[in-house]
């Protein structure tokens, strides 16, 4: 097991009326942790507290088992990048990148200057070194900001929504850049965002926060596909929620929809509530529903599938989103090729199916 090189124990911090409440988590060396949460949930306050820019009202911060709770930011030397890059307008790109080296009086050191050059090369900004920030685009500024934060090889890099103010193309290229840097550099990364795609693509681990507390933490896929509460499922925008109960039939467990005919199972392997007939919410991601055309839907319904008709089709850039109406509304996502192969249109009758391995249950 890898050692936990960064640990938070019951961290509390007040920022005006807002408060971080008992935040605890650990980070392994070189881990990429994404903290996901809605605007105003305390992500930035948490990052600033980790950086030493805010004084915690309780709890501990440990780096390599050393208590750094009351260490000032300049002693922690964590890299920090805000979403709006915040380059120093009175310095050119080279001097912005070398700013941390200036603090350590190493800005004339050839090895540091070489590292600055290498980082600029890796970031694709080596041709901009003599330019001033006002002549840079948003993406270029963010690259410089990241290079500046990475220069002195900080043990931990704190990124506050670094992609959110960029256009989609630039966002995608900086996302790749962050992945490359994470692979090459020694630093652990804590990246806060409200964007699910960023969390899924970048994070090895994920923490979801709301109202100053942690809702759930774990491996990114686990948190995304096995939310522990309805609050989290709603925040993660699970598309299909079915109310029902667990029924035992012939020694096996099944999900039975409350006001409809849907029956899904057997789901013995799932982590079910203990009591029989427990009220549950069944969650299915849109991408896990499959559709097939039907001509006659008068026959008996199969297990794990039900009928509906297509009410709305949303053509998105990479896929199709199809809203089907049955007893309720069901949202499915298909690739463009899948959709073409089905030869369906608005109003078509469809069979909606789900693989029992792709469902998730939350006790009510």
């Amino acid at each position, binding site marked *: 097991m890898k050692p936990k090189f960064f640990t938070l124990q019951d961290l509390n911090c007040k920022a005006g009326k807002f408060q971080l409440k008992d935040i605890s988590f650990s980070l392994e060396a070189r881990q990429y942790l994404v903290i996901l949460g809605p605007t105003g949930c305390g992500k930035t306050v948490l990052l*600033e507290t980790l*950086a*030493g*820019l805010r004084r915690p009202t309780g709890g501990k911060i440990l780096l390599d088992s050393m208590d750094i709770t009351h260490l*000032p*930011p*300049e002693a*922690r*030397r*964590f*890299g*920090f990048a*805000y979403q709006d890059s*915040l380059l*120093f*307008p*009175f310095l050119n790109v080279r001097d912005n990148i070398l*700013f*941390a080296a*200036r*603090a*350590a009086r190493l800005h004339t050191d050839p090895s540091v200057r070489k590292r600055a050059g290498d980082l600029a090369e890796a970031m694709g900004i080596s041709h901009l070194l003599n330019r001033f920030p006002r002549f840079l685009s948003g993406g270029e500024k963010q690259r410089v900001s990241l290079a*500046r*934060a990475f220069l*002195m090889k900080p043990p931990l890099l*704190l990124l506050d929504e670094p992609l959110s103010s960029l256009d989609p193309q630039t966002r995608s290229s900086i996302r790749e850049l962050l992945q490359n840097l994470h692979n090459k550099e020694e630093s652990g990364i804590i990246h806060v965002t409200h964007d699910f795609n960023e969390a899924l693509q970048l994070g090895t681990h994920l923490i979801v926060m709301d109202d100053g507390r942690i809702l759930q933490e774990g491996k990114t896929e686990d948190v995304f596909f096995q939310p522990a509460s309805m609050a989290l499922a709603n925040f993660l925008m699970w598309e299909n929620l079915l109310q029902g109960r667990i029924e035992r039939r012939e020694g096996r467990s099944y999900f039975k929809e409350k006001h409809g005919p849907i029956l899904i199972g057997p789901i013995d392997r799932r982590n079910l509530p203990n009591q029989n007939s427990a009220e549950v919410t069944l969650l299915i991601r849109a991408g896990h529903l499959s559709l097939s055309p039907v001509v006659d839907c008068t026959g008996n319904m199969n297990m794990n599938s039900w009928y509906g008709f297509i009410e709305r089709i949303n053509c998105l850039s990479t896929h199709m989103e199809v809203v089907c109406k049955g007893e309720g509304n069901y949202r499915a996502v298909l690739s463009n090729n899948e959709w073409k192969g089905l030869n369906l249109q608005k109003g078509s009758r469809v069979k909606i199916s789900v693989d029992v391995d792709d469902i998730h249950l939350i006790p009510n």
Partner: protein
Amino acid sequence: MPSMALKRNNGAAARDNSRSLLFGCFWLLFIFLVLFMVFLIGGLLSYADWETVRIVLLQKEFHFAMVFTLWTSVLATGLAALFAIPSAYVLSRYKIPGKAFVDTLVDIPIVMPPLVSGIALLILLGPILGDFLTRFGLEVVFSQRGVVVAQWFIATPYAVKIIKQAFDAIDPRMENIGRTLGFSPGKVFVKVTLPLAKNGIISGLIMTWTRTIGEFGATAMLAGITRMKTETLSVAIFLNMSMGDLKFAISTAIVMLLIALVALITLKLFLGKEVRI
């Protein structure tokens, strides 16, 4: 419903007309103000006898007033900077109980008539602190030192106000970045905050300087009006006007006007849009 549509159109047309009238008035008032300034300066310049101006410029009294005004105003501006930069930073960055009251106290010289400021200074630095200051050889009342103190007192609040605006405009997260990159709070102030506020500070100090050059009321009360001793350019104008030497007074006024114009034009050319005065 054509009649409704017509009413709506008429209403929109009426609104457009009233808007045009409003902005037309804005333009008229603006043009009046600009023309007034042009005539004011033009009137003063046209009234001058340039041969007399040349003669006045060569006079010993003018030289004294000019040099005296320059060094006292530069010294007063330096002292204003010494107090204004830290005060503006404190007002901009810290939560102070009763901040509105403290802010008002700092602003007092702006709202108080200069003569009243002069009397207040005279009482503080005369009857109250005079003996104490004399013991250290620092007499202020009716001395050249009094000129510097009066100029400093009148001009410092302007510097505080303009420099505070410059500090307010800085995103505190810039300073945060400086801290995370390894600088202590003091070094962040020098390496990040001051360079970011540079233009505001320079414009604040130029405005302070022009204010000190023109200071008269408080100077007259605290330092007195003594020819060739506490005679600034403003005092020189007053002295010569009161003795009926209008030509000397007008020549000096023109020189002061030119200094103010050059200072303001320099300010606007060098600092461009960032000037907030």
